[in-house]
C-alpha cells in the first residue's frame, strides 16, 4: 500500500518502496484552468526538496512545480507533451508528472496527510 503526501503548494507524492510518483492535486488543476503545456525535468537529474523542477502552463499563466522530496528523476510522463490536458482530466492518475527515487524519506514527515490537505483547501474555498 502506497502512502500519499501533499505539499502546501498543491503537489502530491505517492511513495511505494522508496519510489515516488509526483503530480498536482485536483484543487490545483481546477484553479489553474485549461492546461496547455507541461515542461518536465530530464530523467537522471537530482533535486532537493522544494526546488522548482517543472512548469505547468495554463491559458492564464505559468506555474512552477516544487518537488515534494529530494531525489533523482527516474521517469517523466512524456505523454503530457502531446496531451497536457490529461493533467486537468485526471490529475491524481494518468496526469502524473514524474517518478523519482526518494533519497530522504524522513522529509516526507514535513508534508501533509490527505486529511490535513483537505482542511487546507477547505479553508480556501
Amino acid at each position, binding site marked *: 500500500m502506497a502512502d500519499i503526501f501533499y505539499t502546501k503548494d498543491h503537489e502530491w507524492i505517492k511513495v511505494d518502496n522508496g519510489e515516488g510518483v509526483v503530480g498536482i492535486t485536483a484543487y490545483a488543476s481546477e484553479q489553474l*484552468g485549461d492546461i496547455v503545456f507541461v515542461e518536465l525535468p530530464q530523467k537522471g537529474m537530482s533535486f532537493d526538496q522544494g526546488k522548482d523542477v517543472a512548469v505547468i502552463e495554463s*491559458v492564464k499563466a505559468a506555474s512552477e512545480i516544487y518537488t515534494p522530496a529530494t531525489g533523482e528523476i527516474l521517469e517523466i510522463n512524456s505523454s503530457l507533451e502531446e496531451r*497536457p490536458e490529461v493533467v486537468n482530466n485526471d490529475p491524481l492518475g494518468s496526469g502524473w508528472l514524474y517518478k523519482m527515487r526518494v533519497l530522504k524519506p524522513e522529509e516526507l514527515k514535513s508534508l501533509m496527510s490527505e486529511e490535513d490537505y483537505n482542511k487546507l483547501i477547505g479553508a480556501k474555498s
Partner: protein
Amino acid sequence: MSELLNENIYVEKTSLFDFHNKMNAKMVSFGGYYLPINYAGGIISEHKHTRSKASIFDVSHMGQIEINGPFVMEAMEKILPISFSKVLPGKIKYTQFINSEGRIIDDLMIHRTNNENSVWLVVNAACKEKDMRHLKKNLNKNFTINLRDDLSLIALQGPKSELALSRVIPCISSMEFMSSIWVNYKNYKVLISRCGYTGEDGFEISIPNKNVTSFTEILLKNPEVKLAGLGARDSLRLEAGLCLYGHDISQEITPLEAGLKWSLDKERLNNADFIGGYAIKDELINGSKRNLLGFLPKGRAPAREGTLIYDSQDNLIGEVTSGGFSPSLSIPISMGYINSSLLDQKEVFLDVRGKKIPTEVVRLPFLSHNYFKKVN
C-alpha cells in the same frame, strides 16, 4: 508593504456582480473591477464557443462618455486624428487619444450620433480618469463631459450574435458593422453598437444598470448564447491581433509603431492639426523605432508578456507584449515589438525560461477577422 497598499485599493463591482457569482464565475480584479475570468466551462471552451456561436461578456468596466455641446465634432477633431466628414451619422470609428509626443494616451471607439451636438465614446477602464482629465483640459466650458456610469455594457460576440440579438430586438438585423443605434426596449432605452474586440461579428449593448441583469438573462435564453469571461476575451483579441492598452500599446508607444496607421485620417495626418500631429508626421517621414509583429514559437510553450526576443546572432532585438496559447490554432502565439532596423528577420528566438525557442515572425492578425459585411 505592497500588500498593505493593495488592501487600500478599492475594487468596484459591476451591476452584474451577483449574477456572475450565481453563474459560478471565477472572479478576478481587472481595471479596478471584479469581473469573471471564466465560468464553469473554462477559457478554452468559452473561446471556441465564441468563435462558433455567440458569447456574452460583461464589459461594464469600460468607460462610456457622452460629450455634448455646439460644434462638438469640430472640437473633438482637435484632439483626435479622425475626420468626421468621413464618418456618417450613426457610425463608429476606432481611434486613439494621442499626447504631444505622438504616443498613445488611450484607444477608444467614438460614435458620431444623429445629434450634431453630441458624440459618444467608449474608453478603457483603467484610463477613464486620465481620459476625463484629457478631455476637460482640451475642451472648453461650452461642453458637458458626462461619464455615464448609470449604464452597464455587455458584449455579444460570435457569428450567431445577430441571430440571437434579433430575436430580442428585431431591428438590429439591418445594422452595418461599426454603426450604432438607440433602441426602445420594454420601458427603457439601450444603445446597440455593432462592433467588438474578438475579431468576430457582434454587438456591444449599453443598458441601464438596473436592467442589465434581466437583459442578460433574456439574451442567455437563446440556445446559441453562453457566458464568457475575460480569459476568453484576451485569447480571442490576441488571435485577432487587437492591441490591449497597458500591454501592446501605452504612453510609450505610437500609433505607427502599433500598426494603427489605418486608423489615422490621411488628410489630418498631412495637416498635423491635432494633438500629437507633428510628432506622428515626423515619425512617418523619419520612420518608426519599432514595429508590432506576430510570433509563432516552435513547440507548445507559450511565450508571454515580457519574453525577450533575440536574433540569430543572439542580439536582443525586442520584447513580447502579449502572448499565450491560441485555442483556435492549438499553438502558442505572441505579439511584440522588434527594432525596426531588424524588421526583415524571418526567424527570431524567444527566451522562454532560458531556452531560446526558434520562432517564425508573422503579420497580424493570426486569425482573419470575421466582421459583418452588408450585402446589397
